[in-house]
């Protein structure tokens, strides 16, 4: 009899475990908040402000998803994760999605069983050095001490780059961006390497950013994007198409300023109508309200607005659109059609 009870308990445990793995969309709706994994603090991408309110480019994606699913961009529980803890947090279900400048790689997608839902920032790994060192190229960094965030793709790129160029270096592994900044400023390492966007964001927080230069070499491709657990395709679709909605909205000229007007009645552009739910039933197909995209775009604006507000050229981070411009303007952003 003990055996039967035991097997029964096993079955129940197995079933609950199986159930927990699927239907994230229902879980989020039932919970009323979205658990979104972000960095522990990177100005421009995800960082709490003086009032403890999270803001930034990645945070904008979380808020858009929360607005699309729950109708409330503030219904987000932000979970700060380090480069090391992020995948465990996502795989274990502690967070529903991860928007933490995470590079889309084959092994993460296939072997670690995650699903990247798109790319919200095309990045590449760069090096920052103090101006006084007089270094103008990464190839001159022979023998340098390099600060590097551990558990990231940059760690592997760094080893590859130095080996390929037959120069040596000494790595100083660090856990968080803040730690890297501190070590770099104290001179414990000669150069700090991470994604170029991250370097720009870090430099923006320095007392005197002009004392530091970002070297011209970009040593790797770093397509950054939000990701979810493998195997829950409905939830993956929600996150993917929310991101696409933000990108398509910029392409079609839908902004947080004019969206109320455009969504009030069907416009002449059928794609805008389908996107904003005044025509067709795209929202229903996703399992969301018809005006899901309206809410997502109203949350923080379209992709371009989020970019300009958080990391654009008029912010301290000061990044140019570059590869992250719409395809119509020579960039790589290309949202699939809404139909």
């Amino acid at each position, binding site marked *: 009899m003990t055996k039967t009870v*035991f097997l029964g308990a*096993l079955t129940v445990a197995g079933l609950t*475990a199986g159930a927990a793995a699927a239907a994230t969309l229902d879980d989020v709706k039932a919970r009323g908040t979205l658990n979104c994994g972000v960095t522990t603090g990177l100005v421009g991408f995800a960082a709490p402000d003086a009032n403890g309110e999270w803001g930034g480019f990645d945070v904008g994606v979380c808020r858009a998803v929360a607005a699309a699913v729950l109708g409330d961009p503030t219904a987000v529980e932000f979970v700060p994760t380090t480069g090391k803890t992020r995948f465990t947090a996502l795989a274990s279900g502690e967070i529903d999605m991860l928007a933490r400048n995470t590079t889309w790689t084959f092994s993460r997608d296939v*072997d670690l069983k995650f699903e990247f839902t798109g790319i919200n920032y095309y990045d590449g790994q760069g090096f920052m050095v103090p101006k006084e*060192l007089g270094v103008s190229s990464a190839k001159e960094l022979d023998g340098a001490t390099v600060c590097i965030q551990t558990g990231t793709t940059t760690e592997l790129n760094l*080893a590859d780059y130095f080996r390929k160029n037959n120069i040596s270096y000494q790595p100083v592994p660090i856990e968080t961006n803040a730690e890297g900044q*501190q070590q770099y400023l104290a001179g414990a390492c*000669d150069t700090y390497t991470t994604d170029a966007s991250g370097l720009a964001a870090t430099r923006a927080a320095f007392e005197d950013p002009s004392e530091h230069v970002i070297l011209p070499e970009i040593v790797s491709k770093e397509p950054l994007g939000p990701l979810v657990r493998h195997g829950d395709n409905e939830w993956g679709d929600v996150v993917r198409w929310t991101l696409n909605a933000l990108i398509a909205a910029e392409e079609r000229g839908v902004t947080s300023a004019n969206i109320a007007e455009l969504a009030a009645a069907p416009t002449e552009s059928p794609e805008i109508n389908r996107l904003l739910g005044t025509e067709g039933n795209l929202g229903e197909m996703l399992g969301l309200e018809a005006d899901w995209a309206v809410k997502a775009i109203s949350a923080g604006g379209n992709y371009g607005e989020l970019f300009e507000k958080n990391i654009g050229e008029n912010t301290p981070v000061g990044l140019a659109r570059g590869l992250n411009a719409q395809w119509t303007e020579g960039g790589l952003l290309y949202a699939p059609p809404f139909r």
Partner: protein
Amino acid sequence: MTTMTDPPKASFKLSMLLNDTRYRSYTFQFIALILLIAAMAYLGSNLAQNLRDAGLNISYDFLGEPSNYDINQSLIEYDSRSSHWRASLVGVLNTLLVAFLACITATIIGVVAGVLRLSNNWLVRKLMAGYVEAFRNVPVLIWILIIYTIMTAVMPAPRDFRGDDAEASMILGSFAFTNRGVYMPKPLLDPLGWMVVGVFVASIIGMFAYRRYATKLLYDTGKLLPMGWPSLVILFVPAILAFFILGRPIELEYPELGGFNFNGGIQVLGSLIALWFALAIYTGAFIAENVRAGIQAVSRGQTEAAAALGLRPRRVMNLVVLPQALRIIIPPLISNYLNITKNSSLAIAVGYMDITGTLGGITLNQTGRAIEAVLLLMLFYLVISLAISGVMNVYNNTVRLKER
């Protein structure tokens, strides 16, 4: 069958399992065992089930693949093309290195502080009490961070050593204290140099042989040979003679500023120093208390009797009190050594690449093999801890009370 005439046996009843004291303990132990096995089986099958649901499997194949990352301190040859297994091995050696250094230093600090806590000098006594209380009651992670931050913030960067009017200069022209660590000269040994080292090792053995002979002579004949200066002579003179006769075969390679860093010499990483000293002073405070307790546990009559025989205070301590105190000190000392080894896993806080940093950190992250890596990590710490307590238990057996 019924023809046998055995004495009538009390028939075994099921209730006896609970009521009979002969069986009761077995019953409970058996139940506990079943529960334990059931709990483990439940956890294990839950794990297997969840892994299956997530489409994952348990495999150690990743250990053979190239690691693709670099490690800042490795005692064996290693580069980014080496396997994850080798990276783990580098981590193991780094853990053992810092644990070894910290155990030795903590023991020295602990014994000195423990003895001084019983000093007759009020100031010394109170200073040591202050040390013990301050260091014992602040978490070791905080101490690691404090020492590391002081090192990186206070020490000069290598670039400060550059130029004619440099802000910092090397001590004695051979030691550089930088915020990346300490650079010191490295002895270069050619085959003749190894001979000098061999002579020195032989001298050490010779010194112990002499001391043993002197003690034996004292016990056998009562003749007292001098101990101090002959030991020193035996230790140093042959090695120095060999060094000069063989034509100074050992050279020192001095660290020199070149490029971004000092080159040549030995670099002791700042993270190693921070971890080493933090573990040593933190655990030293615990050991000091053990030593004090051990000494105070030796009956006062022992000290008084030794004094009555005319032994001087130093000899009372060395010959009478400490040998007896050791019996009490050793067992808790073992657990302090184990603590040092396990606490060394905080290394990642300062970027020291121990086993938790390589296998449990970067390898785990880059391969995503969390369960495999953590199981291996547990196995390693278990083996190391059991080995340390095994060795210390052997030592404990040699000093414990020999009952006759």
